[in-house]
């Protein structure tokens, strides 16, 4: 029996329109080319709160599985192939030593042969991933190309991100790239971000994910995508715009745990070195003045410092006095130094990283240890790698499980890795377009979070019905046939060995393949029951000849991917 396809899959045309609608919502008129540039658009942030929450777990969580399973699920997008076995074969006499070896290799991504992934990316036919900023600007903005060409770099990064999540052996780099994209969130489909998205992804985010925070911050502050998104490109002494400076403090560095609101600077208590322990609104406004004149050239995309736009008077930021008439860029760079080296930033970034890498309620001692490294290595070129290493080698890493849930990206990538999904996300592939649309439905359109705080990380935000139902629905989409052919997206039948034909055998083979471990008895029982459908689970099923049985097995695999066990992190 031939499976019935979802008839609601949008056409490629509809998908393009959809993204275009999102991207041009702010443009008036829609034709950007005919509007004076200084009047074009704004960041239409869809603000939504997404802060870590004080969820108390009232019932017992599952026992932590093996070190290999924890590591590959929390420091990457789930195990694939023989990766669990490879982890267990690493040198070392205990889990901690093997984890150390795995992490040290991952923190040196160049040492990992990633030719399989590279080949996949090469075969996908992307053309914009390695272009320079100037080239992207010329090819995708300045030459006034059609919309699909303008936005192509964003499309290609979306697809390459999925490919890498599924195929790259540098899993920790991929996970951290996702983390930093969200930390310095920009709405990707924005009409001025999309054409240069591959540079933002490659040079700023990916290039610094294991590097130095201050270095990354400096590149963020001068990138046209961010200058545009948070409006600093237009900020001048005559008309300062606070948007970038505010989010720099609130989201990128100190965080609101170190925000004391609308009080005066001299009312803030001081800590070590006489530095204020927190920022206040007046620091935001003073910092805004420091960044006046930080803009970019609309003809080339190059960062530009406009001395004639800069507020040259003296300022005070976080207790540091900045004299009048400083050299070009100095004021802004002092602010970046002040926030990057503030102890509050060390704690805030460490807390966010530990929440991502360990669990939603990380042990305070992890944060203490990571923050200490963050501060001590503040100028080290591998500062962030050292902070990550400190977090994941903390004893609580291997004893924490079930304090996080997979978000849609992690769910889909891990499902494809577990069940060996092999399709490539090409630019003009209708099926890929459908998948990306389904991410949107599930609440996680890639690079599509509008507000500058990035997708929420805490499980409370991902346990409501939309992400759950739409996440399950995505699993049934994965086991289905492609839009454009009768080829199944997951080759479930061919992967099932010849000797595996009873309901019990099929359940156990696929449980092992998907999870690499046993799952709770009641979950396995349901899988077997589903496959047996009331018959003896030790009877052979006509998998080789009966399409209905084949469909049932595909649906059984879908069910495994929808199970509680597949969602834990």
């Amino acid at each position, binding site marked *: 029996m031939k499976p*019935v396809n*979802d008839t*609601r899959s949008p056409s490629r045309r509809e998908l393009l329109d959809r993204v275009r609608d999102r991207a041009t*919502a*702010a443009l*008036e008129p829609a034709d950007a080319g005919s509007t004076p540039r200084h*009047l*074009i658009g*704004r*960041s*239409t*942030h*869809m*603000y*939504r*709160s*997404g*802060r870590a*929450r*004080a969820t108390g777990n*009232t*019932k017992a969580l*599952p026992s932590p599985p093996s070190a290999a399973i924890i590591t590959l699920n929390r420091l990457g997008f789930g195990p694939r192939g023989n990766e669990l076995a490879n982890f267990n074969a690493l040198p070392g006499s205990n889990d901690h030593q093997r984890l150390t070896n795995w992490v040290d290799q991952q923190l040196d991504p160049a040492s990992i042969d990633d030719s399989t992934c590279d080949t996949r990316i090469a075969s996908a036919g992307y053309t914009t991933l390695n272009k320079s900023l100037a080239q992207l600007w010329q090819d995708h903005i300045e030459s006034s190309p059609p919309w699909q060409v303008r936005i192509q770099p964003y499309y290609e990064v979306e697809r390459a991100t999925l490919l890498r999540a599924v195929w790259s052996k540098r899993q920790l780099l991929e996970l951290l790239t996702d983390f930093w994209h969200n930390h310095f969130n920009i709405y990707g489909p924005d009409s001025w971000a999309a054409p240069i998205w591959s540079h933002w992804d490659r040079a700023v985010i990916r290039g610094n994910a294991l590097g130095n925070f201050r270095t990354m911050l400096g590149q963020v502050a001068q990138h046209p995508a961010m200058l545009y998104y948070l*409006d600093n490109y237009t900020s*001048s002494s*005559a008309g*300062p*715009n606070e*948007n970038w400076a505010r989010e720099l403090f609130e989201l990128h560095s100190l965080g609101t745990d170190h*925000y004391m*609101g*609308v009080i005066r600077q001299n009312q803030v208590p001081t800590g070590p070195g006489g530095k204020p322990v927190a920022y206040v*609104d007046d620091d935001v406004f003073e910092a805004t003045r420091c960044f006046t004149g930080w803009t970019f050239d609309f003809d080339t995309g190059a960062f530009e410092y406009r001395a004639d736009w800069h507020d040259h008077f003296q300022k005070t930021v976080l207790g540091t006095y900045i004299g009048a008439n400083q050299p070009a860029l100095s004021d802004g760079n002092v602010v970046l130094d002040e926030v990057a080296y503030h102890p509050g930033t060390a704690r805030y970034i460490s807390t966010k990283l530990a929440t991502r890498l360990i669990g939603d309620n990380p042990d305070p001692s992890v944060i203490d240890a990571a923050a200490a490294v963050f501060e001590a290595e503040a100028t080290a070129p591998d500062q962030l790698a050292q902070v990550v290493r400190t977090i994941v080698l903390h004893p609580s890493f291997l004893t924490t499980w079930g304090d996080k849930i997979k978000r849609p990206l992690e769910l889909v990538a891990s499902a494809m890795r577990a069940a060996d999904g092999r399709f490539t996300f090409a630019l003009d592939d209708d099926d890929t377009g459908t998948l990306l649309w389904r991410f949107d*439905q599930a*609440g996680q359109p890639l690079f599509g979070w*509008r*507000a500058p705080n990035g997708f929420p990380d805490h*499980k409370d*935000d*991902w346990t*409501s*019905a*939309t*992400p759950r*139902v*739409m996440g*399950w629905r995505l699993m*049934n989409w994965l*086991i*289905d046939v492609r839009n454009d052919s009768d080829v199944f997206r997951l080759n479930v039948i061919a992967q099932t060995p010849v000797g595996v034909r009873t309901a019990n055998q099929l359940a156990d083979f696929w449980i092992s393949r998907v999870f690499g471990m046993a799952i709770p008895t*009641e*979950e396995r029982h*349901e899988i077997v029951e*589903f496959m047996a459908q009331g018959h003896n689970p030790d009877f052979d099923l006509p998998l080789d000849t009966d399409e209905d049985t084949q*469909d049932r097995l*595909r*649906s059984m695999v*879908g*069910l495994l991917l929808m199970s*509680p066990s597949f969602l834990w992190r």
Partner: protein
Amino acid sequence: MRHPTRRGFVTGCSAAIAGMAGARFPSMAFADPEGTINNEIFVVVFLRGGMDGLNLVVPLSGVDRGHYATARPNIKVPLTGSDSALPLDGQFGFHRAAQPLHELYQDGNVAVVNATGLDEASRSHFDSMEFIERGTPGIKTTASGWLARHFLSAHNLPSEIVMPSVSVGNLQATSLLGDRNTINMSDPDSFNLQLGPWEWRDAQRVALRHMYSGDDTWLHRSGLQALDAMDIVELNVTGNYTPANGAVYPSGSFGDGLQVIAQMTKLDLGLRVSTLDLGGWDTHVNQGDDGAGYFGSLIGTLSEGLAALYTDLDGAGPNNYTNRLTMVVQSEFGRRLFENDDEGTDHGHANPMIVISGNAIGGVHGAWPGIGPGQLFDDADLAVTTDFRRVLSEILIRRMGNNHLGVVFPAYSDYQPLGIVNGTDLPPNYSGEIGGLFSDNFESGDTGAWTLTTP
């Protein structure tokens, strides 16, 4: 009285789901011979990003018009011409694009409350939203939302409601955080597993329910919540929805979401609370000249949507939902009095709240603090004169009959009605205690839902 559940429904449903596919769950009418059950429909619309309230509810007269016009030379809403403001009470007027809302106002169905906000001074979007939606200004770690605690403490709801609350969108509203009866959904038509081999989908659903019943962790509970939601929606939503009374919703996700709220309301499954967001209000640049442009188009979407929902729900007899309906529109803060050099506005403080109800006491309410020198908050922003909790508390008490303010808004202690909606006043109960009945916290909720934690 316990927090409403839908255990009975779910139990019946799960056993029969495979056979019932396509069947419509019988409409639940809440017979209430003693008149003790509250049937109010409450819709909360949150404008994300900091809506520029001074350009929605515009000073039209007196010295404040002068202050306003001086502070906003480019973006002010004019007094004359095609973009001129729509007068409300002589002192204030709506933005021109709020025409549909103005018509509701003229019918006496809109209460505008000026200068509302947080007593906690924060110009952070994210903190301000947390403070408001959790109902605990200054505390962003409270483990539940204020609307969740309304359900927890309301003593006048039926013991079972199939669909007590709907949170439209990709993620559940923080105001409903902790309420696992909430149906979080964007589009009822795709809110199902109808992909993959069709002949095994129902069996998958049955197996899923069993798997997610296998333990009692937060993950299992959330899975059951999703399965319940999916069952309820799929069994009850049939065919295309046609709005009543010729109501036309604006295109886009906001109009779509409002239409979902209307559709869910008319299922008569007991819907009491709905939430929906409209974003895009963080207008630091190019807000639009003379009140037109970007901001105006957003106000148009907002007003057309609210009016469409009101029209759609306005019927006769059992279809008269507007006599039970109260909508409240709020944002995390307002914006500065002074426009910036980019013809935008930066983060400010106080803002109007808009209450639309068949039971509204129409008019402009709330003390107006003035916008002259010495009257502004921090020399820059409209000052707060009315705690946002006061507005919401009046709706809670007068419309929803819930006076447990100590549970819904812990630490709030000086409630007085403003007179924005009709209804019976009850003495506010500021006790955080809700009795041993709730010793299990939140009726199968996954958190100690109403427990407060301080940072």
